[in-house]
């Protein structure tokens, strides 16, 4: 059981608390989903459960915590390892040794578990996560989903009473994420393990959750999933759609929403036949023809064709390791293709001419922090403009709502704000083509929605936008077209609605709820209904 009373915590040097007045009672054997905006206390709350807060971070902690009958603050995180298994967001950052079997043994060796017992538990952990075939593999050879399952199995071998996971699927492709979450659900159902998991893509876990914790501004509320998520801005798309359309009882899953769709007479008249037409696209900003590229010993791209026109947002999707980032690097001239052609506007890109292209291409890497080095946000912008021979700051800070943060230190900002600063830094020189590599990493639903709106705005200004993403809801909200890459080849391409119809694993919840309609997001549905009944638009 998790029992928190009057918990408040403030990080060192921070003026306001990260957690305030937290009181919780979550029963044993529950699967608790933690939902909340980025940077508002989810990770802090999770780290309270094994004592990393306050022991690892310092700061000021008050209140009482009991987890599975023990006090993590008194016991310290080291000893809590036996009671609470903790899995972090980035699997790469938690591995210590080089082989799967040894990684599972590492925690047990720290606790002095006898070797024969270790062997039994390793066999059990591998079996529980369905990764027995990975036992002798080197960790660097695993996919993202496999790595995260290894991390969970490593936590399980200590036979904890509870498993705590901090956004374990944020870096995984849809299939990898589904594998990890299915494994968690199975552990909860079959083994009766208590699980607490923070997850931005709530729709993935809500069907299995017995409780939901919502965290906002350091304040925590908890209860049954339907009670907590009805009307919540970070609820699954079908739940938000239900709130807009006044459906009752509030559905949390597709299965619960389908009967309500059948009974809503407004939808019968509004559902369009066939998919929507894409936006009228202009001339090609990026034109890739028959592109081949090889790393030593690995063929990364085989005959890829791809076009991004001005005024168009294209989402490049596909599993981890499909070649998406390599394609972006070739488009920027950072790599030289073995065969094929890359053209930006009318100019042919040859490997190594990145400096010449910089005026026309903007690139935001997976980690926006890779760009940020200046003391102030405004200095990041003027740095790019100076590099391009432009004076002043331009108006990019205002366009990204960063004027109030212009003098802030970029690395002190939240994940979403950092993402916007990185965008401002690369867009400062008014490029024609914008490339983004997994831009939704760490963003919550609201921040993703803002980003999608911003990218649509860029397209309206005549820019071409190409983003790689695993996030189907982001692709649904932002992209005119989707190109699906697998093992270095384009396996599907077309209008977003058409690709989502053909590729169920890449379909948004609304696309799955209304197959063939061309609707992809809740606002698509409410807009279509509003076209017939203006009152519904106001509700959405």
């Amino acid at each position, binding site marked *: 059981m998790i029992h928190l009373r009057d918990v408040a915590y403030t990080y060192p040097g921070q003026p306001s608390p990260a957690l305030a007045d937290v009181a919780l009672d979550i029963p044993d054997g529950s699967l608790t989903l933690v939902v909340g905006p980025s940077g508002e206390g989810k990770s802090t709350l999770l780290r309270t459960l094994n004592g990393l807060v306050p022991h690892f971070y310092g700061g000021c902690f008050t209140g009482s915590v009991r987890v599975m009958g023990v006090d993590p603050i008194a016991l310290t*995180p080291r000893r809590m390892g036996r009671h609470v298994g*903790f899995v972090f967001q980035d699997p790469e950052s938690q591995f210590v040794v080089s*082989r799967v079997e040894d990684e599972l043994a590492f925690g047990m060796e720290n606790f002095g578990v006898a070797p024969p017992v270790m062997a039994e538990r390793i066999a059990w952990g591998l079996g529980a996560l369905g990764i027995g075939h990975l036992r002798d593999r080197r960790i660097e050879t695993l996919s993202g989903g496999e790595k995260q399952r290894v991390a969970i199995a490593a936590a399980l071998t200590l036979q904890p009473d509870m498993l705590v996971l901090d956004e374990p699927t944020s870096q995984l492709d849809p299939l990898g994420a589904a594998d990890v979450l299915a494994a968690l659900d199975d552990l909860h159902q079959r083994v009766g393990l208590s699980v607490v998991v923070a997850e931005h893509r709530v729709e993935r876990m809500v069907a299995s959750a017995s409780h939901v914790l919502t965290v906002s501004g350091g304040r925590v509320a908890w209860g049954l999933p339907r009670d907590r998520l009805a009307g919540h801005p970070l609820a699954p798309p079908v739940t938000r759609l239900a709130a807009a359309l006044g459906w009752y009882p509030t559905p949390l899953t597709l299965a619960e929403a389908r009967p309500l769709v059948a009974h809503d007479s407004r939808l019968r008249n509004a559902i369009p036949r066939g998919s929507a037409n894409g936006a009228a696209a202009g001339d090609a900003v990026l034109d890739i023809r028959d592109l081949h590229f090889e790393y030593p010993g690995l063929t990364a791209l085989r005959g890829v064709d791809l076009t991004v026109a001005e005024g168009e947002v294209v989402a490049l999707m596909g599993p981890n390791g499909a070649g998406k980032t390599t394609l972006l690097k070739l488009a920027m001239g950072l790599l030289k293709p073995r065969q094929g052609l890359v053209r930006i506007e009318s100019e042919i890109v040859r490997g190594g001419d990145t400096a010449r292209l910089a*005026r026309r291409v*903007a690139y935001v*890497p997976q980690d926006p922090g890779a*760009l940020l080095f200046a003391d102030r946000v405004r200095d990041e912008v003027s740095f790019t403009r100076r590099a*391009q021979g432009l004076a002043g700051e331009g108006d990019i800070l205002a366009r990204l709502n960063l004027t109030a943060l212009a003098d802030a230190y970029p690395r002190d900002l939240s994940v979403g704000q950092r993402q916007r600063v990185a965008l401002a830094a690369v867009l400062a020189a008014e490029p024609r083509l914008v490339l983004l590599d997994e831009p939704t990493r760490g963003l919550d639903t609201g921040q993703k929605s803002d980003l999608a709106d911003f990218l649509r705005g860029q397209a309206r200004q005549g820019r071409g936008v190409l983003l790689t993403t695993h996030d189907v809801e982001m692709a649904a909200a932002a992209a005119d077209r989707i190109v699906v890459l697998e093992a270095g080849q384009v396996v599907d391409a077309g209008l977003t609605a058409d690709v989502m119809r053909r590729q169920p694993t890449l379909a948004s919840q609304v696309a799955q709820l209304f197959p063939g309609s061309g609707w992809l997001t809740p606002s698509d549905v409410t807009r279509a209904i509003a076209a017939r009944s203006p009152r519904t638009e106001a509700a959405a």
Partner: protein
Amino acid sequence: MLPRHPLAWLLWLAFAFTAALTTRNPLYLIVVLLALVVVYQAAGARSATGAAWSAFIRVGIFFAIIGVSFDALTTHFGDTVLFALPAHWPIIGGPITLEAIAHGAAGVIQLTCLLVAGATFSLMLDTAALLRYVPSAFYHAGLVLTIGLAFIPQTVAAFQDIRDAQRVRGHQFRAARDLLPLIGPLLTSGLERSIQLAESLEARGLGYTEGPSRPEWQPQAGLLLGSLALGAALFSLGYWGRQPWLLALGVAGAALLVGTLRRLAPSTRRSRYRRLAWAAADIALGMASGAGMVALLAIQVANPLALFYTPYPTLAWPPFNPWLGLVYLLLLAPLTPGLLHRESRA
């Protein structure tokens, strides 16, 4: 495939370092370097991690060449004068000699040997297997070392990503001050990664002890005092010779170090999952490396001139003993069939 025995690789590394550090004869160093490069290629230089190590080696060679250039400009000794800089120029003024350049070039080869050997060892290293052979008292030091080795390729990869992102932004790296947009994010991302790993280690019970924890200042004070006493004794021996009081200081420092480490050892209470058996190929590697190292050390003691070479005062063709060349070729022992087979990397 089963992992390769870490102690056999550790012996190989020691042999490679001994080979590179016991001579400045460029012919022997070239033989050593060629042997190491062949093993490095077979160990996975073309994998993703290997590519990061290769970049690290290139950076190392680049800085070594800068060092050599500085050396050549400041060492005005040797008979073969290539040209002379005005004598009134501070430090670099004077004759620039072929001997100084040759001496520096041998240093670059030496450093490259060390880098390639370290990269090969890192690529073949089975971290967990090695840590299981580290005595409990040294476990944390061993862990820090292996994590540090793993951080090198990760840092190189992060360096390349940041450099690419800044280049696309239009930044050009022309002078030292242009490195700030590279160094700042590199340091910050490295620190963030370190903090995440430290959190993970803490949450997984690293340093777990049963019973009350011992005050940390006691072992720290013991290790500090022991190291200081031993270091001071060794340092002073060079000046004052084998004075009894210096020997006593050294013995006391060593005893304090060993005693502190022994006191630390039981509190860690770690267990070891399994220790690898020595396969035939591992034995072959260990024996070849051990034999090679012993041979070099024996030659160094018995006939130091056999390995000695200096280009000063007049550059002359270095001597080459084919039997000694064969000893260096023992560095190719990892190519024993089957020893280098690794699973394919994704």
